[in-house]
């Protein structure tokens, strides 16, 4: 064999063994869709991930339709970074946050300062700056405990609401991670974040009561998510809340377009 032919024989098998070094198969990933961050009374950080279960979200499977297409996993740590690493201690798959779309902070966390709680997201390679950021009164992890009505997943429902609500009513202002980080950095601008809460369903909204008890989620099916005003920050600390009506005034104050309803009393 000539050297050239020998080289070809050596090089050809190389094409078969080549592959992607950092490849991650979808069935080896836990794909997080939303993250809720609480600060416990003892100062620890609690992270709650909402993971998608892609194999369950396909309707065609049909066998166990009562099983939810998502799962909640929580872990504690001294810092956000530690909690994010600790989550792998009990996770069967590799953590992947590239599809994450929501970050929700509890009021306690926001009042103690978000600086150390947002740093990881601005640096982690998985994270996109297009994640929407919220604050909530009470525990952040409780926000996922409602029965989604139109979508099959709480994250999709909240994501849809924040995407479209501000085009119809001026009672909320969507803020993604980019907006929030810019406002943290720029002198003279203080951040605001939309508030999300779960409220009881109204009388006409409740459907099929008989199935709820079997799932044990009893109360959660009576709740629905609701965008309600804004949390106002000074630096990275939450200092107060704006009601939905006051949020409309925020639109005026920051010269944003106001698309909501103005009720004019009769006889004016």
């Amino acid at each position, binding site marked *: 064999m000539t050297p050239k032919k020998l080289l070809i024989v050596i090089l050809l098998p190389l094409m078969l063994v080549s592959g992607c*070094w*950092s490849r991650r198969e979808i069935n080896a990933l836990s794909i997080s869709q939303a993250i809720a961050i609480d600060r416990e009374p003892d100062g620890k950080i609690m992270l709650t991930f909402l993971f998608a279960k892609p194999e369950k979200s396909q309707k065609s499977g049909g066998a166990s339709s009562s099983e939810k297409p998502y799962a909640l996993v929580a872990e504690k740590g001294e810092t956000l970074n530690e909690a994010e690493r600790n989550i792998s201690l009990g996770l069967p798959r590799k953590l992947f946050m590239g599809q994450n779309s929501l970050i929700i902070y509890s009021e306690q966390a926001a009042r103690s300062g978000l600086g150390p709680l947002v740093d990881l997201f601005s640096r982690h390679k998985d994270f996109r700056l297009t994640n929407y950021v919220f604050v909530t009164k009470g525990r952040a992890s409780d926000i996922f405990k409602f029965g989604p009505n139109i979508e099959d997943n709480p994250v999709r429902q909240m994501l849809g609401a924040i995407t479209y609500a501000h085009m119809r009513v001026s009672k909320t202002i969507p803020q993604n991670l980019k907006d929030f980080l810019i406002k943290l950095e720029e002198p003279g601008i203080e951040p605001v974040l939309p508030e999300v809460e779960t409220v009881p369903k109204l009388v006409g909204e409740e459907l099929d009561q008989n199935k709820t008890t079997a799932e044990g989620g009893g109360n959660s099916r009576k709740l629905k998510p609701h965008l309600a005003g804004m949390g106002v920050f000074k630096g990275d600390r939450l200092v107060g809340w704006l009601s939905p009506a006051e949020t409309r005034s925020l639109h005026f104050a920051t010269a944003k377009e106001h698309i909501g309803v103005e009720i004019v009393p009769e006889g004016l």
Partner: protein
Amino acid sequence: MALEEGKISGKQLTILYATTVIASAVVFLPGVVAATAKQDAWISSIIAALAASLLVLVVLKLYSRFPDQNVIQYSQTILGKWVGLIVGAGFVWFFIHINAVIIREFGTFLAAILPETPPAVFMSLILLLSAYYVRNGLEVCCRIAEFYFPLFMVQVLLIVILVAKEIRWEFFKPILGNGIGPVVVSTLPPIMWFGEVITMTMILPYLNDKSQANKSLFLGLAIAGITFFLASFFTIGVFGGNFTSNLNFPVFELARIISIAQFLERVDAIVMGFWVAGGVIKITTFNYCAVLGTAQLFNLKEYKPLILPLAVIQVVLAITGWDNVTQLKHFIIYTIAPYSLILFEGGIPIMLLIIAKIRGLGVTK
């Protein structure tokens, strides 16, 4: 026998110069400039391009005096054999050193996206490809650049068009809020990038039409300047001055936030592909200069045996030179910009030109 037999056209020279400058400029530079100039980074890009035209002019003046010699050769003609040899060796070291910085930049960039892969793998593969181009000669390098350049430009334009809706005009205010001082200081790194025109002193002798030199290089500078202006203008407009300076790869973050109708999203993988292609061209240019310069320095008949040893030296230098991306960024801003501007891109060429004028060397009309 000449070391390099190939001939290139004026258009190829323009493309090679423009790609050499912008390939890594759009990756790192907006963040570097915004660190000092904040919201005025776009102004500093204009000043830098104007100031760099002086460096281009020096290179062209030297070329018109010595149209058949490169910088290694005419520094010996001008300064005499021994001093000229030292200066020539300095230039070769400069090409190798800068190339190590560039290789490390791209290794860091890829490793930030694919963290499980050791950066050494990326660096070695990029340099292996570049070594193959250099082995095939200058004409092949230029033709590869000609092929990548349109893709690269289309990709840059696509990013800025797609993020145009995210621009907030208030981020540009206050214009010159801290005075002109920080803006002037921040022009040093971009001038250094544009000053990479010094690599063209190695390539100019192979231009087929000598009258094209002026037009080609200034056109290349204009293309690079406009691209860099777009990159800094849009990063400032979208992220604001303070946040941009915190980002390691601002233009890449621009690509990541592209979201058109929840449909055209996550284009960053494509962007990364084109950047690596541009980076290979840039690394090839410097690699070629280093290899050709070394061969000339030692009066060799052929430069091919030097390619692999020099490639190994450059990769090792790139791997061992810096511990992390912060150190690399600091080195680029505070060490390499003044060092290369004062010595190899500005000082020595100007000195060579003045001495050549005094001694009346070269072609004078």
